[in-house]
């Protein structure tokens, strides 16, 4: 029993609130036949010990690429510039060997597909035990005991039997929990979870979110949670960053972003979500679709879809600036005009061409 206490994560000296990760001016582009694809454009953020930072955005917004760039996991064709400071060092300047060491133990990443992080030829118990032994000089048996304990913590039923299973014998939800258990064994400073629940059923999603919370409790790590699901963000994140077309367009506490959004995109996104907790009402779809990040025209990337759009939006791209408070930033020239507005005040809810639809209905009548 005493050995097990030794194996519990050792709290590092840092206290809650210290900056662990600082990203500044991060730019990522990929070459393509039509010119560079600017997937991330000038992203800055700081992550503090003990906090959960949520990054939301729709497909193609650059939310995943941002974190892959931080972890240096992008293909070699990607051009990355800017600075990623972790523990006083710039990760973008490290050698591959140094980076591998950091990826293993200091920053853990949890992907949408758990099989990318699991080795198919070893049992899950062995894989967790290996992570335990990488950090603690203990016997194989002690490491395996700890592995079973961790499997139990992520709520895998019959953990001791399950430790002998191979990854392919488990369901998607179970595998994801194994990945989280490995992350716990590594005792990282930062956990980056990239769409950890997207491919899973809702009841299993809830289990994974519980396991992630357990991992955060256990290790005291800061967490970056990347998802397109605003519900998950609402439940987990302390601070929220909204991304659109490779840029941060709104940053603030969860309450700021959900209750007083100051970027029309965020407002539209919230208005377009059907809600389970109230009878149905009209949704506010955002017209059009996201711009292509190749050959972007000047001005606000959301401009063409924005009901608040004016001439200035086509000329200059708005920078993030303080709105309702110093920590609530939005990149919109007209942020103030959103005060007190609800989504359906701003966006139009009609979709069908009323005239054409009416005509169609008329013809169908006997």
């Amino acid at each position, binding site marked *: 029993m005493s050995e097990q206490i030794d194996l519990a994560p050792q709290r590092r000296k840092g206290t809650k609130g210290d900056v662990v990760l600082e990203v500044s001016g991060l730019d990522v582009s990929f070459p393509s036949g039509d010119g560079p694809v600017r997937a991330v454009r000038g992203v800055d953020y700081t992550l503090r010990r003990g906090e959960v930072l949520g990054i939301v955005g*729709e*497909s193609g917004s650059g939310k995943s690429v941002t974190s892959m760039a931080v972890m240096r996991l992008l293909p070699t064709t990607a051009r990355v510039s800017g600075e990623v400071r972790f523990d006083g060092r710039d990760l973008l300047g490290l050698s591959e060997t140094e980076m591998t060491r950091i990826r293993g133990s200091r920053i853990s990443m949890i992907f949408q597909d758990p099989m990318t992080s699991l080795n198919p030829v070893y049992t899950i118990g062995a894989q967790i035990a290996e992570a335990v032994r990488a950090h603690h000089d203990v016997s194989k048996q002690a490491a395996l005991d700890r592995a079973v304990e961790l499997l139990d913590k992520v*709520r895998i*039923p019959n953990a001791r039997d399950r430790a002998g299973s191979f990854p392919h014998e488990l*369901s998607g*939800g*179970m595998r994801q929990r194994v990945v989280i258990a490995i992350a716990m064994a590594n005792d990282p400073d930062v956990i980056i979870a990239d769409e950890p629940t997207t491919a899973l*059923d*809702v*009841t*299993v*999603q*809830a*289990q994974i*979110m*519980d396991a992630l919370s357990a991992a955060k409790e256990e290790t005291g790590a800061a967490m970056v949670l990347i998802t*397109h*699901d*605003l*519900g*998950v*963000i*609402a*439940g987990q994140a302390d601070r929220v960053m909204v991304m659109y077309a490779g840029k941060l367009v709104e940053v603030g506490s*969860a*309450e700021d972003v*959900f*209750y007083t959004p100051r970027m029309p995109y965020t407002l*539209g*996104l*919230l*208005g*377009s*979500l*059907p*809600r*389970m*907790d109230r*009878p*149905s009402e*009209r*949704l*506010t*779809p*955002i*017209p059009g*679709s996201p711009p292509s990040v190749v050959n972007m025209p000047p001005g606000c990337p959301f401009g063409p879809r924005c009901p608040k759009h004016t001439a200035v939006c086509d000329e200059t791209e708005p920078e993030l600036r303080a709105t309702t408070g110093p920590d609530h930033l939005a990149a919109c020239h007209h942020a103030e005009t959103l005060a007190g507005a609800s989504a359906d005040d701003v966006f139009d*809810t*009609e*979709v*069908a*061409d*009323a005239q*054409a*639809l*009416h*005509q*169609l*209905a008329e013809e*169908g009548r006997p």
Partner: protein
Amino acid sequence: MTAVETQTLLSVRNVVKHFPIRSKGLVRRQIGAVQAVSDVSFDLAEGETLGLVGESGCGKSTTARVVLNLIPATSGEVLYKGRDLTSLSRSDLRGLRRELQIVFQDPYASLDPRLPVNEIIAEPLRIHGLYSDGGRDKVRQLMQTVGLKPEHGNRYAHEFSGGQRQRIGIARALALRPKLLVLDEPVSALDVSIQAGVLNLLDELQAELGLSYLFVSHDLSVVRHIADRIAVMYLGQIVEIGTAEQLFTAPAHPYTQALISAIPLPDPRKERARERITVVGDLPSPANPPSGCRFRTRCPKFANELTTEQQSRCVEQPPELTDRGDGHPVSCHYAESRTLL
């Protein structure tokens, strides 16, 4: 959106669908069956939307395909306006296809990549010999109706965004002026801001054209938004069915309660203050479902609240789908409605 019509359009009676599991080798004997749909019954009224919800593997998509006779039922009846679709000849069925249409989940896979969009939408008209009668104009009108520009008609599907493609799929389904649309996860492949547009479009179409929808989805929020009545499925069976209002304000089946409780609300204060009902473990194999109540292996009520005596009833006796005093049918011996939202 509250339908007051009482005319039943579609009546599904005791539908069963088993997919045989065959042994490997030359003889390929049948060694078992995946019970994808086990004795499912429901009615759909004219102008009404029935939501069919459940997690992957619950049989909701198979049910939808059996309704359209795209997959033959193992047993049971699908009555459309009183005629049993499962026993119709191929040519009779072809005529009825005009009234029953489907919109698929994947707007990428469901449109032929080799055809321009106006041909995709014209396809149903051509098949039923209606194109010569002003088909070109009809296609333009349909494109306009769903919010697409008719000028884009000669582009190919891959040139459109996901939301636009789904509109193309809807326009194609509308071309024959159907009475019933089966919508198989029509918005789950789309980003939320795009999804809202498609949902609103479906609302508007229904209001104007008087369509009935069978809306299959795993997303309870979407279903609450669009459906008048909802059937919750688990392992090939309906476990609870009722109006959207009943199901969300007073869910009585432990599975429905767990589903509702598992979906995060996009509202930080509410979300962090909610009561959680968690389900343990994974879905059992539909080839070998648990005896008695199929949900008992994961049921939080079974595990935490019931006495051994009560539990034995769950193990031995499959619960029937009947009203147990909750105002709507539930298949749980110990159904008890709760407020979760």
